[in-house]
């Protein structure tokens, strides 16, 4: 089979938003689960955990576009979430802006910061760029601590009063068909609607001309420049898009947490590494991989904390439980440490043994299933 024919066949289906029947079915199923979950799982803890995962998914899609499609590693993602969080705190809660306005503000401010990083991406390569994105974490932390009139300094600030209404629909207190929804349920819907919109935007970017240009920049930047793909334009665009999505994700995360306060740069760095783990485990170079990663890994700290009590049997030799469910409880690991270690182990294990992540596993599974049917194995979408 000639490589040209291969290329043509792979390129054509990926132009479609939902390339084949199975993808359409899975998408329909996801929408159904989204609509039903809050009705079945009417529990504030779970709603908040899933809403947080949604906020993480929005930000992860951004990082996936930057790292997976444009090949730029960033350790500054957590800083951009922080910026998004304070944007909703300042404009939404302090100044009473309507929801569409503070969302737009979070997106635009995120994008602006991304554009500011862009020129470094042009001048610096690889490791140097990674450390510059790390600088963003330190600089943001400094600004947050010292610009107290906007951020509230060390005391942090409540974002509870930010409006969640758009038109007649108020996600803070939803009424649908005479049924009242809690604030947590409303925020769950809000977050996952934004995940769907972000995924749509992301998918549209990567399956059209800009997406191909970004991949060209990722794979061979000089060659891309030679055939007329401007490195400057697409690297800066990738940082802007990724940062805008991180800003939106951060705003949603703050809304879900109700409160934002500064955390130290080390914690911010670890949050950034968690985002890297999310997109690696989910699968680089896919949008749905980022969403799956965020759904599985995003809630890990909360889940470890919640379920530590279930594993309270003691380990024989050391005579202590594996994870303490409270700081006083004498577990081998604290819940926070255990979840961080899980992130680290998952990141390393996936990079070594399954670098294509869960999306890659799904792709292989579909190829195998498709092997005996009339579905062309190469037609399985790569994106």
């Amino acid at each position, binding site marked *: 089979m000639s490589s040209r024919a291969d290329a043509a066949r792979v390129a054509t289906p990926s132009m479609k938003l939902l390339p084949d029947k199975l993808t359409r079915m899975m998408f329909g199923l996801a929408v159904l689960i989204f609509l039903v979950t809050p009705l079945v799982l009417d529990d504030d803890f779970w709603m908040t955990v899933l809403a947080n995962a949604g906020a993480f998914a929005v930000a992860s899609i951004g990082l996936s576009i930057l790292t997976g499609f444009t090949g730029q590693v960033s350790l500054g993602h957590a800083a951009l979430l922080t910026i998004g969080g304070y944007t909703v705190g300042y404009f939404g809660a302090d100044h009473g802006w309507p929801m569409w306005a503070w969302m737009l503000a979070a997106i635009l401010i995120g994008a602006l910061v991304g554009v500011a990083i862009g020129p470094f991406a042009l001048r610096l390569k690889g490791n*140097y760029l*990674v450390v510059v994105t790390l600088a963003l974490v330190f600089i943001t932390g400094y600004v947050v601590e010292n610009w107290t009139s906007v951020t509230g300094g060390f005391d942090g600030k409540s974002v509870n009063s930010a409006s969640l209404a758009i038109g007649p629909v108020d996600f803070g207190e939803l009424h649908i068909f005479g049924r009242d929804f809690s604030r947590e349920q409303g925020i769950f819907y809000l977050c996952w609607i934004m995940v769907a919109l972000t995924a749509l935007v992301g998918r549209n970017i990567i399956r059209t001309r800009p997406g191909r240009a970004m991949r060209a920049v990722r794979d061979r930047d000089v060659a891309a420049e030679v055939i007329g793909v401007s490195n400057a334009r697409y690297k800066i665009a990738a940082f802007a898009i990724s940062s805008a999505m991180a800003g939106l994700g951060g705003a949603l995360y703050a809304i879900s947490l109700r409160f934002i306060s500064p955390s130290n740069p080390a914690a911010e760095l670890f949050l950034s590494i968690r985002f890297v783990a999310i997109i690696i485990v989910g699968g680089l170079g896919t949008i749905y991989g980022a969403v799956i990663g965020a759904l599985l890994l995003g809630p890990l700290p909360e889940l470890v904390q919640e379920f530590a009590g279930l594993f309270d049997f003691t380990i024989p030799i050391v005579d202590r439980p594996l994870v303490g469910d409270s700081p006083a409880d004498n577990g081998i690991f604290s819940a926070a440490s255990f979840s961080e270690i899980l992130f680290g182990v998952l990141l390393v294990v996936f990079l070594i043994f399954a670098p294509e992540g869960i999306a890659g596993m799904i792709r292989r599974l579909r190829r195998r299933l498709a092997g005996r049917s009339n579905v062309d194995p190469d037609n399985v979408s790569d994106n």
Partner: protein
Amino acid sequence: MEKFFQLFVAAIALGGIYALIALGFVVVYKATGTFNFAQGGFVLLGAYLVYQFGDDWSLPFFVALILAMVVMAGVAAGIERVVIRPMINGPPFTIVLITLGVLLIIEQAVRTLWSEPAYVLTTPWGNGVTEVAGVSIRHVDMWTVGFATLVLGGFFAIFRFTTIGIAMRATAFDQEAAAAQGIKVGRSFSISWAIAGAVAVVAGAMLTSRTGSVLTPGLSFIALRAFPAMIIGGLDSPGGAVAGGVVIGVVEVMALGYLDFDWIGSGFEVVLAYVLMIIVLLWRPNGLFGTRAVQRV
């Protein structure tokens, strides 16, 4: 003027600390081309090991230090062998991401193994101070500068004069060509990581001793401040790491000494190092002493 000299001594000592931390990064980068984020974790774990051997097991300090260096060299080489080596020919940023995962694991492992919030690390120099011409010099600072000089000199000697050093340089230059010449590429990797681990112990002990001898997991965060030093000097230049460390040390100490706190706010010294780094990078993208990257089209 006395204030200036006082600050200058403090600046050189701080620079020495940053240089010690940065040298651990540089040796791995120079020999293997790996940007090792886990070095901050090595510094943290190294300091706790010195505490464990010296204070907890009551060994003499220098015995504890050397024992910790040996253990840490083994840990670092082991980590390289298990999680880095398999990925050497993988996609470029995979290894950087793996070292981030390792950093996460080491940091939490330390919090798990030593669960008290803080420990006190006892050192022979303690809080001793010597007055020279009206300027007081802390003994820990003298030791730091001494160690930094020793490590730098050792690097220079190893890279320049020993067979192992030449093998490491050849490996860094071109792995395949080095292997074709009969150089054991794997051994170069192991040795460079082992050296990084051992140097991290010294850096960790000195850093702890310098910041009041109180050992907390926050140490790895201070170690992150050495990044700008390394970047300013150039990733593959040991001399550059020292120069970068001193530059950051001087700027940081002078800024804290002469600028008004109300104006600069809290945490300014951390940001300053990074801002300085960004300015240098815009001017020279490979640092002051780094090798300019040549790209083949």
